[in-house]
């Protein structure tokens, strides 16, 4: 087990728990009609964003994709701004312009999620380019799925970051499926780290349901990047336990109940809690305190979001250009 302080251990737990509870609330809100568009939850994958973002500051940039709530929350966007955004309110992190797939909060370095699969890989590379050119010591981080790894953006982005030694972390969340297409159908080589290494870059595969494994891999990757030693790909092997998107069947034609149950048993939050309890790193009361606080935060966030006003339609054409 990694050698962290109790505060650090618990901070990781707290972050995962916050993501989980926020999304459970969002899923309910979706059923209630409060979330207007699509809603792809991150339930089951929380350890990845949490382990990576623990090493980042507001100066570091995160770019993400359609399944981005967890990344935004882990990067420091308050739950109430995420919820308000999905509820289409002006208090949302994108002021209601974005919704679930377009979460922007540049103030904390959350540089956006994209409804299009792929671009985040390139944009994180560009953040690395800025950091290197301006010598800021910042890193760019892209979160994306296994499905994105077959897209040309992956090829072009990984190669550019490698040849120019850019400070970039590519975090591939391999949850085995792209919507209902199995990764093993979409490629003959499911060894993502090997594929990344074929560009000449550093790459590592970790158990994406083990927050400490992710934390450690990210620690190395961020150090390497900040030291000017180039990019790293981290493959987090994980699983989404809810449907691809809220409202879709949770099994579909592509996976079995057994598979789903097996992964649920490896839930990143409860297994981590058990591990901390078992090792004595934290006590039940620590968790109780955190869980209560998070639940309160999520409840408040929900109230905040639900009671926030919608944006004023007369502002609809603002901000297309910088001066407007």
């Amino acid at each position, binding site marked *: 087990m990694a050698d962290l302080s109790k505060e650090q251990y618990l901070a990781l737990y707290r972050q995962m728990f916050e993501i989980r509870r926020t999304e459970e609330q969002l899923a309910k809100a979706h059923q209630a009609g409060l979330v*207007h*568009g699509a809603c792809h939850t991150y339930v089951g994958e929380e350890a990845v964003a949490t382990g990576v973002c623990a090493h980042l500051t507001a100066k570091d940039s995160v770019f993400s994709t359609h399944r981005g709530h967890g990344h935004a929350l882990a990067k420091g966007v308050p739950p109430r701004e995420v919820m308000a955004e999905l509820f289409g309110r002006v208090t949302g992190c994108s002021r209601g312009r*974005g*919704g679930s797939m377009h979460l922007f909060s540049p103030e904390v370095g959350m540089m956006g999620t994209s*409804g299009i699969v792929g671009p985040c890989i390139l944009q994180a590379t560009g953040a690395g380019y800025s950091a290197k050119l301006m010598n800021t010591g910042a890193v760019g981080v892209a979160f994306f799925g296994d499905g994105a790894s077959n897209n040309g953006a992956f090829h072009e982005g990984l190669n550019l970051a490698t040849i120019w030694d850019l400070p970039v972390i590519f975090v591939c969340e391999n949850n085995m499926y*792209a919507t209902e297409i199995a990764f093993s159908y979409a490629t003959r080589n499911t060894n993502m780290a090997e594929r990344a290494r074929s560009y000449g870059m550093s790459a590592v595969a970790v158990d994406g349901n083990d927050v400490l494994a992710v934390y450690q891999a990210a620690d190395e990757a961020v150090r390497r990047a900040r030291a000017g030693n180039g990019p790293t790909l981290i493959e987090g092997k994980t699983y989404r336990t809810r449907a691809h998107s809220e409202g879709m069947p949770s099994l579909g034609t592509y996976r079995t109940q057994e598979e789903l149950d097996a992964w649920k048993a490896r839930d990143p939050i409860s297994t981590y809690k058990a591990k901390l309890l078992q090792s004595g790193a934290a006590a039940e009361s620590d968790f109780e305190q955190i869980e209560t606080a998070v639940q309160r935060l999520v409840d408040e966030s929900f109230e905040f979001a639900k009671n926030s006003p*919608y*944006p004023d339609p007369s502002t*609809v054409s603002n901000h297309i250009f910088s001066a407007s």
Partner: protein
Amino acid sequence: MRELTYTAAAREALAEEMARDPSIFVVGEGIGQRGGNFNTTTGLYDLYGPMRLRDTPIVERGFIGMCTGAAMTGTRPVVDFMFVDFILDGMGELINQVAKIQYMSSGRLKMPMVLRGSIGISGASATHHSGSYYPLFVNIPGFRVVVPSNAYDAKGLLKTALRGDDPVMFLEHKALFNQKASVPEEEYFIPFGKAAIVREGTAATVVALASMIRKVNEAADTLAKEGVNIEIIDPRTVAPLDIETILQSVHKTGRLLIVDENFGPCGIGAEIAAQVTARGFDDLDAPIQRLNGVHTPTPYSPPLEAAVVPNSAQVLQAIRDLLAE
């Protein structure tokens, strides 16, 4: 006559043509066993298997490029792209290859490719799932661009698309998927470049597309009660564009409004207005007007989203303004 939804009618066209022609195959994400994100291929995988219902990785450029090569070598690909926003990643293949291969090869190669999927603003889909982009494909020579407004047209036009040898962008507005219309059991085809006169009238001509037809019809109903009869024209295909039917109508009415959810600048309405002003100038009793969606990325929040799509009240007002000129 039986009623079918827009989606079911289009699916029937595809199913009939696939049964008839073994060289037709479909590619897309989730169009196999799953039957398509929008049920475009439901049931077909069980009939034709994976070679003809081909699930793909997330490689829009890749599968468009692949289908280009396939179309050049004797098969007839159907690209089921889900949202038109996604194929912007394949724009190089579309514009530089798909649209140009017949020309570059002096007509010795054909390009029988149908690209189909959803367009339009609906249901807080936000800016990466709300695009329409048809003016781009009209500006570029080499595409047939089809924008059906109802189930009957969707079937007849898709049949025509699947029989032809040209690349066809077949664009289905999300707001129409579940709308029903009478669709005959007998086979029929609708030719490209033939507008439909949706409603006859003499007071003014309104050209509208896709989901705008319904809104214009509502406005026309209101006006009809006032004794004012509007002529409504649905071009159905924007390339080729049936400008003759529009000119004839303007000859009769003297007034023209084009209603289009999509962007104004360099849009379909601009092209229609320019052609009518050049060729039907003397018929015009008033300036041609356009009513378009607001020229902005599509916002997510419902009140913002509603503010960028022309609504029935705006359509009605635009027609009243036109009549008052």
